[in-house]
């Protein structure tokens, strides 16, 4: 813009043709020819939303921390995760990683090992990151009922904002499903304990063995605390509902897992049947295997309809656990009050039900029997609504709240499984955080904080960068780094963590496979390709010199990752 402020130079007119240079060359600076005026389209740097970020229920800025990871800025990567998920060591182990399902790289070769990188960064920061301190103190007391992923996440963000937080936990140890439901071989208790130490260091008080409705009454809590957040999960197992279910040797999957997780050894026989196709069923079967039993899973639909995470099903099969599909229990066969077997019925798939999955339909006369010592039921969990006050809004099966956990009652919030029914850890974390934002917004009388943008810098567009937007000419095919795991033998008769975590080099190399979909990662392509030298370096990134950019679009075309958009000149401000 320099020349604009000055008078444009006069073009000299020479007396004789022979005074002109012998070739076609301008007599004055070519900067007076503001070629930007030719432009009808202009490129703009316009970060899009990477599909991984868009898919993450905890709103993690995944592309951002993969970028930091690649630069070996581990602590910054950890802290970026902590902006929306306080516990990456947990999700890095147990999350079902929908981000990887959305990863554009899967169309090219294999998705990025985001889950494994998250675990690396989580563990890196867990032992190294300085403990944060709230900037302000707020007088408003918050009580959170339940110390599972939703409760602990809400507690973290509220404590960070200066609220005194008390968590009430019914069990002897905190963690909810993380503690009771998830086996040690998937999430080490040592890691969980460390995450709780981190939470307590922030000033959060946790009262265990405190079931609301028993020792403490909800009405008292509502008088004592100005804010109450229900985050008590879905811990009631559904019953089989078949004759004989009261027999000894029939137990719920949750109860079975909780006993193991609390250090006890439940009594089971050799022949164990686990009924169900969800994550609890898989966890129960793999745990039974580790106790020395010979478990089998019985599921009424097929593998395609199993709600369990596919990776977990795969691991169960690898460990040698058979799954019988298309069979449903008819009755438990007893002998002297104990389980001795089960009668089942073959099923076939009918029309889709309300969940979109094909409904299992019994095949008449297909009854068959299995000899069993133990039956573990894992056909779903329900929310305990019994202790809620009459005025707390609830449907027949869950507490009613919006996606920010707001109920119709002022000061009463709810988050996690108790609102959504049994879902995932990462969804509970996302909702716990949103509830914290809503609570703070309510107390401070401010609007709820904007959801963060896509990249590490600033706000991004809401458009999701698709695979078709990626200029794959700039990427080489490369294999995803395998997650090191215990071999099958080493998993026998113990609950050691199966997955061992990426080594640092592997984590860095894996992060370098990221396309950085829709987000500028300073690759210099636009800078190198611009035929008009109109891409200028600005700090770490770039800006256009619109005085001379002709809008040719080469930069946008050659951007490997769709971080540049061409817009019509008349749309530009």
């Amino acid at each position, binding site marked *: 813009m320099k020349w604009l402020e000055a008078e444009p130079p006069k073009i000299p007119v020479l007396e004789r*043709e*022979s005074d*002109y*240079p*012998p*070739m*076609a*060359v*301008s007599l*004055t*600076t*070519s*900067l007076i*020819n503001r070629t930007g005026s030719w432009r009808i389209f202009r490129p703009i740097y316009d970060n899009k939303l990477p599909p991984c970020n868009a898919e993450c229920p905890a709103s993690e800025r995944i592309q951002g921390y993969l970028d930091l990871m690649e630069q070996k800025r581990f602590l910054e990567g950890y802290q970026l995760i902590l902006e929306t998920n306080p516990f990456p060591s947990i999700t890095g182990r147990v999350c079902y990683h929908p981000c990887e399902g959305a990863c554009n790289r899967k169309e090219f070769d294999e998705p990025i090992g985001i889950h494994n990188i998250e675990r690396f960064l989580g563990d890196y920061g867990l032992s190294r990151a300085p403990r944060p301190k709230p900037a302000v103190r707020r007088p408003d007391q918050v009580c959170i009922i339940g110390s599972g992923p939703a409760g602990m996440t809400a507690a973290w963000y509220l404590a960070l904002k200066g609220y005194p937080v008390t968590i009430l936990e019914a069990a002897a140890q905190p963690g909810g499903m993380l503690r009771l439901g998830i086996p040690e071989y998937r999430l080490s208790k040592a890691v969980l304990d460390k995450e709780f130490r981190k939470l307590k260091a922030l000033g959060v008080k946790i009262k265990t063995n405190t079931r609301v409705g028993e020792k403490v009454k909800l009405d008292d809590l509502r008088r004592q605390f100005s804010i109450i957040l229900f985050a008590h999960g879905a811990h009631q197992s559904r019953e089989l509902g078949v004759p004989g279910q009261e027999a000894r040797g029939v137990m719920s999957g949750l109860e079975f897992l909780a006993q193991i997780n609390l250090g006890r050894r439940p009594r089971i026989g050799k022949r164990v049947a686990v009924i169900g196709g969800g994550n609890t069923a898989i966890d129960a079967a793999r745990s039974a295997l580790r106790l020395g039993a010979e478990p089998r899973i019985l599921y009424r639909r097929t593998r395609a309809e199993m709600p369990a995470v596919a990776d977990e099903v795969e691991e169960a099969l690898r460990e040698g656990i058979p799954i019988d599909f298309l069979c449903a229990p008819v009755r438990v066969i007893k002998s002297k009050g104990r389980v001795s077997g089960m009668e089942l019925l073959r099923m076939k798939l009918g029309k889709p039900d309300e969940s979109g999955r094909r409904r299992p339909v019994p095949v008449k006369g297909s009854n068959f029997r299995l000899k069993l010592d133990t039956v573990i039921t894992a056909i779903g969990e329900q929310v305990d609504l019994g202790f809620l006050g009459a005025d707390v809004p609830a449907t027949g099966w869950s507490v009613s709240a919006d996606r920010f956990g707001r109920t119709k009652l002022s000061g009463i919030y709810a988050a996690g499984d108790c609102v959504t029914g049994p879902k995932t850890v990462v969804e509970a974390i996302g909702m716990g955080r949103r509830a914290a934002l809503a609570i703070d917004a309510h107390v401070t009388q401010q609007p709820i904080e904007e959801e963060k943008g896509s990249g590490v810098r600033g706000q991004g567009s809401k458009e999701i960068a698709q695979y078709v937007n990626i200029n794959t000419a700039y990427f080489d095919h490369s294999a995803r780094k395998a997650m090191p795991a215990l071999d099958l033998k080493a998993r026998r008769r113990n609950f050691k963590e199966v997955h061992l975590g990426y080594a640092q080099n592997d984590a860095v190399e894996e992060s370098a496979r990221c396309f950085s979909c829709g987000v500028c990662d300073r690759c210099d392509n636009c800078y190198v390709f611009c035929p008009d030298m109109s891409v200028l370096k600005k700090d770490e990134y770039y800006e256009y010199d619109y005085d001379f950019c002709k809008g040719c679009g080469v930069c946008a075309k050659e951007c490997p990752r769709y971080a540049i958009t061409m817009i019509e000149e008349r749309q530009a401000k």
Partner: protein
Amino acid sequence: MKKVITGNHAVSFGAQCSRVQVISAYPITPQTQIVELLSEFCASGKLAAKFIKVESEHSAMAACVAASAAGARAFTATSAQGLALMHEVLHWAAGARLPIVLADVNRAMGPGWSVWTDQNDSLSQRDTGWLQFYCESNQEVVDTCLISFRVAEQIMMPVMFVLDAFVLSHTSEGVDIPEMALCDQYLPPYKPELKLDLADPRSFGALSNPDHYYEIRYKMQKAHEQALPVIKQAHEEFARVFGRTYGMTESYKCEDAELVLVTTGTITGTARVVIDSERTKGRRVGLLKIRLFRPTPVAELKAALLKVPKVAIIDRNITFGHGGIWTQEIKSALYDEPVRPKIFSYIIGIGGRDVTPADIQEIVDFTLAHDRPPAPIIWRGVRL
């Protein structure tokens, strides 16, 4: 330093002696060894030049244009289809008055696919504005590279020097590679008055309306006219510095000749043998070797040819529908003289077919036996 090297490597050494700063070339038989050796020079640091790899000859010349416009001494080499592909940018280089030097290893144009020599590739570039030298020996190749840069930079026009495929390009001869100190004395660093300059950005090669374009072309013709004394002076200076030199044309045993053969490139060496044997037989036959195609050395041609009754022009090329290109050029140069020699136009050696002393002997005998040419084109050795 004396070395036994091929014609191709003579080109590479010539470029090294000229301290070229940018080389951009695309390999093509029979030129490939030129760029191979130059890339080795660049990689090993024997030559402080930027070697720009490209995907085609068009880009090679475009890179040379840009490098030269930025003030660098730029060089490339090619052959046949490669030169043809450069055609558009050859015009650009000349019109932009960029003193690029190009070595063309004469190769016949396909199809039929050929890698062997004839002159149609380089002579087809007649109207681009490039100066053209034709070389007879490997020593001449090294030396002509230096001369080309010196002339190009003085008149600000690009220069092409040409050598025959295989007969010269792949044939080894003893060559005296000149000392760098002498080369530097002969060819000072290139310092253009106008060049691409970030501190003073100018627009080069932009739209030129009819008010200016005509004069730009006029000045290109003037540059070619000015080139003749500059080339003469460059050859004299070459003799002073290196102790040997060449001419725009070179006469061999032409005194008292009743027949003068006109040759270019390596056919000259073959013809010289025949001239020697003819002279021992007492026949008055001489030889005129032409080195310079553009600008046309009209005065030298007149001086050498007007005094003889018969001229036999040996063309290893053809402009279809007309005939030998050198014939056309020489006839044109002599046209406005009242008395002109009888001109016999021979076409021979097309597509690299061997031209032997026996062929030249036949040409001599045929010409001496005829008072006037029996046809506009006399074909030697065409098999029908």
